[in-house]
């Protein structure tokens, strides 16, 4: 029986190895970086352009001014960059591995299959969205002439991290689904589509939608809640609710993966 610190050190080492391999692969295709950056900028132009149009007709949207809403847009870009860079390429790989039976090679490795299957590959060039997101938040804060205090930054980082964990857990569960249903590309499309809701503050939506995305499907936690934390308009209860969601989702995803792996029969057998 290995000790817990030992296990953690081993997994951190593996993560470093995965990252190193991904960086090497990415550097083979350097032109992709320029292309990905251009796409992120266009996407940002689209999102910001949409927001500009909304605000040309109203001064506030669900209580958010334009620069405040830009913080939400920025957080959305960070989250979607994380999704594109880390989660989506692995999802594709797992679907392929389960379909072809190559999953065998993952399962016989002496590490957690969920860890290996969901964090194996990064696409560095997609991190351009992350840069765009940070730039948007920086611009918004400059417009607001606001420099949040330390506790707000901590709340923002904590809830931002919770948002990424939530996304990771959702994607991991989605990935596990392909052990049951082979073709889940459709479901993936749906998830990406629904995530578009996170481009704008949850309060900007009319009532049935607002309630659903704040409480039932946790899309508001992806962008609105971290932005609220940064702007100091978040109640402690909502912050705790957000953290609880992330924790619960992560736990659930681990359980789903256990069930999925125990169900796996190789393609050939």
């Amino acid at each position, binding site marked *: 029986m290995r000790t817990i610190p030992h296990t953690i050190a081993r997994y951190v080492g593996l993560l470093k190895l995965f990252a190193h391999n991904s960086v090497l692969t990415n550097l083979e295709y350097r*032109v992709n970086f320029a*292309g990905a950056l*251009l*796409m992120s900028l*266009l*996407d940002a*132009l*689209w999102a910001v*352009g*949409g927001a500009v*149009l*909304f605000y*040309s*007709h*109203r001064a506030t*949207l*669900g209580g958010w001014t334009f620069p405040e809403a830009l913080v939400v847009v920025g957080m959305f870009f960070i989250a979607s960059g994380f999704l594109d860079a880390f989660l989506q390429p692995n999802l594709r790989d797992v679907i392929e591995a389960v379909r072809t039976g190559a999953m065998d090679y993952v399962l016989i490795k002496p590490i957690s299959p969920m860890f290996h299957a969901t964090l194996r590959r990064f696409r560095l060039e997609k991190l351009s969205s992350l840069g765009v997101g940070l730039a948007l938040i920086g611009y918004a804060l400059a417009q607001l002439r606001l420099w949040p205090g330390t506790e707000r930054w901590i709340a923002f980082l904590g809830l931002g991290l919770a948002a990424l964990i939530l996304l990771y857990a959702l994607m991991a569960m989605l990935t596990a689904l392909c052990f049951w249903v082979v073709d889940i*590309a*459709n479901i993936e*499309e*749906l998830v990406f*589509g*629904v995530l*578009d*809701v996170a*481009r*704008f503050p949850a309060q*900007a*939506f*009319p009532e049935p*939608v607002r309630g659903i995305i704040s409480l039932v499907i946790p899309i508001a936690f992806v962008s609105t809640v971290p932005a609220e934390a940064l702007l100091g308009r978040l109640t402690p209860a909502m912050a705790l609710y957000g953290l609880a969601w992330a924790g619960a989702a992560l736990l659930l995803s681990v359980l789903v993966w256990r069930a999925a792996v125990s169900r796996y029969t190789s393609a050939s057998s």
Partner: protein
Amino acid sequence: MHKLTRLLVIYPALLRAYWERAVAYRAVFAVSLLNAIFPLVMMAIWIGMAQDGPVAGFSAPDFAGYYLAAVLVRRLTGVGIVQDAERLVRSGELSVYLFRPLDVVHHFFARVLTGRVVVTPMLLAPVALAILAIPGPQFDLRPATLMRFALSCGIGLLFEFYAQWLLAGLAFWIVQTQGIAAAYQFVKAFLGGYIVPLALFPPAVSGLLTWLPFQSSVALPVEILTGRLSAEQSFLRLAIGAGWVALIALGARLLWRAGLRGYSAVGG
């Protein structure tokens, strides 16, 4: 004229072949319905704003009508051929088509035509239900309007088709056509009325946008169907759309001709 009669003989068979293919892959088409989510997100926000009074003349039911029509029209006029056409050129598969007596463009056009016959009925029922459920008339269903709507959809489809055929033709010279195509989709969706009704842009900008080719892809058919345009206005906009189609089709043809002249297939 001989060429045209020959095409009239060939097209029924071509359409039948691609129809069977489209039916076989109908699940793939169903997935394409999912990219309707983003306009519906925009619709929800506009409806939220319209709760305290109309936005630039749009009430909440107006927004619902506009975006539901946009989702429907997107299925009727939207085209996605750059990827396949580009692969044909890059991999050398194009050579197979060059042996055949029929220009390769017709294969793509027949595929595009049959594709929408498969996909549109999947959307018709939900849109019709939503329109009936929302109070207040959103669609203008008089025969004359429907005729103009059909015409505008035809022009929109031709615009989309030839614009993408033009982009695909770039594959004879450059590798990154996919990126260019993706960027084009962004611009077209935003300036063509799919994401935001043109009337909600600042007046100077929206006036300009009605003169651009993108308006015929979604904005024009939707504005006709929702009864936002008078007959004269719609004829002017139809003429603008048709003019652009002619220009783009000519450009695409010249580009493909030049490309094919310098084309030597991969692997000979």
